[in-house]
Each structure stands twice: as structure tokens, then as C-alpha cells.
């Protein structure tokens, strides 16, 4: 059984078919990129997978449960337990420190644990910034806090909607490296991106066009063994081989 399965999903706004008969499967531990022009329905799809929106028609199976029929209360529970979200803009609560923002996800999930939250910040290389407010962090650092927050509850799927959209190249690499780490640990990743460089490190890239799945590119060179410690040059070579 696939971890996630979309069966003939439609999302219709009046006349507009934001999603038009989309079907796809994502296996556990897979790393999938989603690309497509602006307005093609990427975020709409992510919202539905992320239990924040319901399709107009079709079924969404997450761990075998059809979430398209669930009440919004249950969707909140599912989202909290199974999904880690990373947004294009670095959405942090602006009056809470980095570590408090990470603990917020623990707080809603189960019990806040400052030590664990600090470890998560350490993983994204921000151990020394734990007590900083978002306004005292750079954009890249803020996005890394978001990554730490997304992974703190060990979600089955991490959904990232243009996680590198507002980052410079150096920070983009740091975030992509974190995805590699998470992938190696067995986390399922679905990453929406406009950036081909970010997309092509995934195992699969799905291309949406006008709400329809237009293309699927499989990265034959994907080894999954790429590690950030081995350096950028090495990694890029391997992909472009």
C-alpha cells in the first residue's frame, strides 16, 4: 500500500479547475518534486495532501485512510500527527524565539521538550541561535527553524511548498542538504519548487499544468546516498552525469 494516493482529484473554484482529475501515488520514504507554472495548482494540491483543504471530488488516501471525507477536526489531528509543513515564506510566530517556535509544534502534538527542540535546531545548524527571535534571524536561518519545526514530531511526510523560493543559493543548499538527511532517515518528502536544481535532486519530478499532471520525470541517477559532507561539486556532478 502506498503511503499517499490521490484518486481522480478535482478542485473546482466556480469555473476554474485548479486541479483537474489528478491521480498519483507516493511510496513511503520517497522524495518527490512537484513543478509547474504559476497557477497550475501546486499549492492547491499541497493543501489537500496537507489536510488543510478538501478536494471537490476524488479520494485522498493517507496511510489507507480517506482524508477527503474527514471532518476538519480530524484533519487537524491527522495533520498534527503525520505531516510536517514547510512554507515558502518562513512562517514563524514572531514573538517566540527559535526554540519556542520548534516547541510550539511539540506543544500541539504532545508535550513540549526543550532539550529535544534544541537538538532539532542543532540538526539544522542553529544551536547557537535558539534564543533569537525571528526578527533577529536571517531568511535562511528562519527557514531552517521551519525545517526543524517540521521534523520535530517525526512526521511521516514532510510537505514543502517552495521552501527555497526566498533563499539565496547558499541557504538553498543548506535546506536541500537537510532534505537529503531526512530522506536518508526514511522520511517521505514532497517538495514544490520552481527551481530545477532543487527539483532534480529528488527521485521523481511531477509537472502540473493547468491542474493536470502533464509529465513525470524519474531521476535515474538518484542514489539517495548523496551526503552534504561530500561537497557540492561532487553532488552536482553525480546528478548531471
Amino acid at each position, binding site marked *: 500500500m502506498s503511503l499517499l494516493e490521490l484518486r481522480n482529484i478535482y478542485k473546482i473554484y466556480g469555473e476554474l479547475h485548479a486541479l483537474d482529475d489528478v491521480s498519483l501515488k507516493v511510496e513511503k520514504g520517497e522524495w518527490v518534486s512537484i513543478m509547474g507554472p504559476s497557477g497550475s495548482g501546486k499549492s492547491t494540491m499541497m493543501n489537500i495532501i496537507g489536510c488543510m483543504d478538501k478536494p471537490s471530488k476524488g479520494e485522498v488516501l493517507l496511510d489507507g485512510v480517506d482524508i477527503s471525507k474527514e471532518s476538519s477536526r480530524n484533519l487537524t489531528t491527522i495533520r498534527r500527527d503525520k505531516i510536517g509543513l514547510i512554507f515558502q515564506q518562513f*512562517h514563524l510566530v514572531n*514573538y517566540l524565539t527559535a526554540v519556542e517556535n520548534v516547541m510550539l509544534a511539540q*506543544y500541539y502534538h504532545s*508535550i513540549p*521538550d526543550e532539550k529535544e527542540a534544541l537538538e532539532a535546531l542543532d540538526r539544522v545548524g542553529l544551536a547557537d541561535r535558539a534564543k533569537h527571535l525571528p526578527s533577529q534571524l536571517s531568511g535562511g536561518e528562519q527557514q531552517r527553524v521551519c525545517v526543524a519545526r517540521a521534523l520535530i514530531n517525526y512526521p511521516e511526510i514532510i510537505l514543502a511548498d517552495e521552501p527555497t523560493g526566498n533563499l539565496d543559493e547558499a541557504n538553498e543548499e543548506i535546506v536541500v542538504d537537510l532534505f537529503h538527511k531526512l530522506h536518508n532517515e526514511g522520511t517521505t518528502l514532497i517538495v514544490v519548487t520552481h527551481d530545477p536544481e532543487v527539483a532534480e535532486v529528488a527521485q521523481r519530478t511531477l509537472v502540473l499544468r493547468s491542474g493536470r499532471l502533464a509529465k513525470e520525470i524519474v531521476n535515474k541517477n538518484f542514489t539517495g546516498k548523496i551526503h552534504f559532507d561530500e561537497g557540492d561539486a561532487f553532488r552536482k556532478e553525480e546528478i548531471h552525469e
Partner: protein
Amino acid sequence: MKKRQMYLRMITASLMRRRSRMLVALLSIAIGATILSGLVTIYYDVPRQMGAQFRNYGANMIFTASDEEMSLDDVHQSANMIPSDDLIGMTPYRYENIRIRERPIVVAGTDMESIKLTSPYWRIQGDYPATSEQILIGANVAESFRLKVGDMLTVSYTPEGAVATDEETVLDNMIDFEITGILDTGGSEEDYVYVSLEDLETLTENKGSIDVAELSVQANSDELAGYADKINDSGLPVLAKLVKRVTASETTVLSKLQALVLLVTVVVLALTMICVATTMTAVVAERRKEIGLRKAIGASDSSIIKEFIGESMLLGGLGGIFGSVLGFIFAQQVSIHVFSSSITFQPLLIPITILVSVLVTGLSSLMPIRSATEVDPALVLKGE
């Protein structure tokens, strides 16, 4: 870390780290709490204050002679039957006929100091007589004789039984008084002149008797009646009567005034609630994104409500603390400027103000907070 600890950390962080934002909300709550606690203080202090005011309205008991003559001693003995704490003042009056420039005038011998207590509404141009051979004259007297403060005035008195043997013989006793003040009451007092009892004794060469005494007593109508009965039963030649007009109206005006303060309090309470609700609506609107984010990372509606209620109650508590302090100062100022007396401090009002402030803030935040849960988390993911 416990969940509750994190909860408290969050709501205090929200207030402390967003100080400038919360200051507006805090201000509106504090002002509301100030006016409320101030008005409540005044409400409870009104009877005391107004009692003092009505006391100022003059005598509420008078003594007259029963069948025999009433001496100054009788009057003092009777007055002493009223507890000294309740007796504000007692003024004896002895009336005699005198002549000024051959015209008959009524003089009252009295105690100038206690007049100030039993007839505080008397308006004097100049001063009350302070020593002997000084006189206070009614405004009508001053006008008809064209007298002014500082003039000398000769008062003559014909002793009883004195019979003029011929035109030239002067039998009258005469004293030259210095006019210290002119009395303006709008009543019959303006036709009289006032001297001290001692001067009148000198003028008449006898101790005479007291015609009437006015008393100002701080008591409710039941207690007052009790005092009067006691005096009337004492066997002294004193007839104590209550001056009904003032005591009766005292109660009705009092309750009307209290009702007015209560009405204003209710209106202010309503306005405060509207104001707090508006502020909270703005706070919630401003934080839609944050709410969406919290929901996206797994906050249930009830935990969002809990957080905002917690914040608003904390805000209410802080506002209540400020308000109860400022409210006392406010009530004190009102009391000093309106009633010219200070207010009694009610320690119980502090916890009550804080509690009411917390409840009112919590209650009036309920609506905007409910709408907070309607925020769509998808909006956040969309990156609007």
C-alpha cells in the same frame, strides 16, 4: 517541560514581546477598570458624602421652650444627650427687640462659631464677629440703614419696667458695635442683626432665656427620632422637634444620586466591553496569519481559543491592577472636587476590580476569538 508551562510562556511572551501592540488594548482595559472602580467607590461613598452635604444643609433638629422658660443650661444638657460623635453643632438663639436709630429691629444673641456648623449656607460679606462688640447685620438692615462692613453701629435697648419721666432722660442701654459682616441668606435672617450671647446679656443686663436652638445631628431619621424622644422625656423644659423637610428629602435625593451613579457605571461597563471587544477584534485580525500558522502546525480550535482567552485574561488582570489603583485616585479626585472631602479606601475593591476586569475582558474577547478559529490555515501555506 509541562504543557502548562509552555502555555504560560507563550501567552506572557505574546504580551511582553509585543508590548507596543498590547499597550493599546491594555490602556483601554485599564481606563475602563479605572472608571468602573472609581464609580463603584463613589457609589458606596455617596451616602457618606451626601450625608455630610445634607448636614451642611443646616439643622435637622430644633429645641424650643416647652411651657417654662428654657435656659442655656437646659439647652446644653439636652444637647449632651446626643452622642458627641453624632452632634455636629448646636446653636442657641435668644431674640430681643432693640432699636437702631429709633427704629425697632430684632437682635439675636447667638454663638457665631456654631452657626458655621448649623447654618453653613449663610453667605457673609465680611466676617463673623470674633470678639465682643462686633455685630453681624442682615442684608436688609444694611440696606435700609446704608451700612457697610467696618461701620460703627449704636444699638439701644430699653430695659423692662423703665419708664421715661421726661423727654430728655435717657433710660436706654447702649452699646457701639463694629459691623464685621453682612448676612445674605435670601430668607428672613436678612432682617435681623446678630451679636454674641454675652454682648446681649450686657445690653439687656439679664441672662434671659433661649428662644430656640438649632441642632445639626448626623443620624438617620429613626435615630434622630430616638434622640428627640429621649430629650422630650427628660423632664427638662425643652421641646425637641425634627425638621422633617431636610431629613426626608435627604433620603430620596440620595437614592436618586446613587441610581444615577449606578446607571453611569452600567453604561461605562457596556462601553468598556465594546471597546475591549473592538480592540480584541483588531488584535485577532492582525494575527490571522499567526492563527493560520498555529492551525497548520496542528493547533485545534479549542487550543487557539484557550491561548487567546488566556492572553486576554492576563491582559484583563493587568488592566485591572492598573485600574484599581488609578480608580481610587480618580474617585479621590472626584470626591475632593465635588464633595470637598476625601474618600474612604475600600481594600476589597482591588480584587473585585481585577476579577471584573478579567471577566469582562475574557467575555468581550469571546466573539473575536471565536472568529479567530475560522481562519483558514491554507491561506498561510499559500504564502499570502
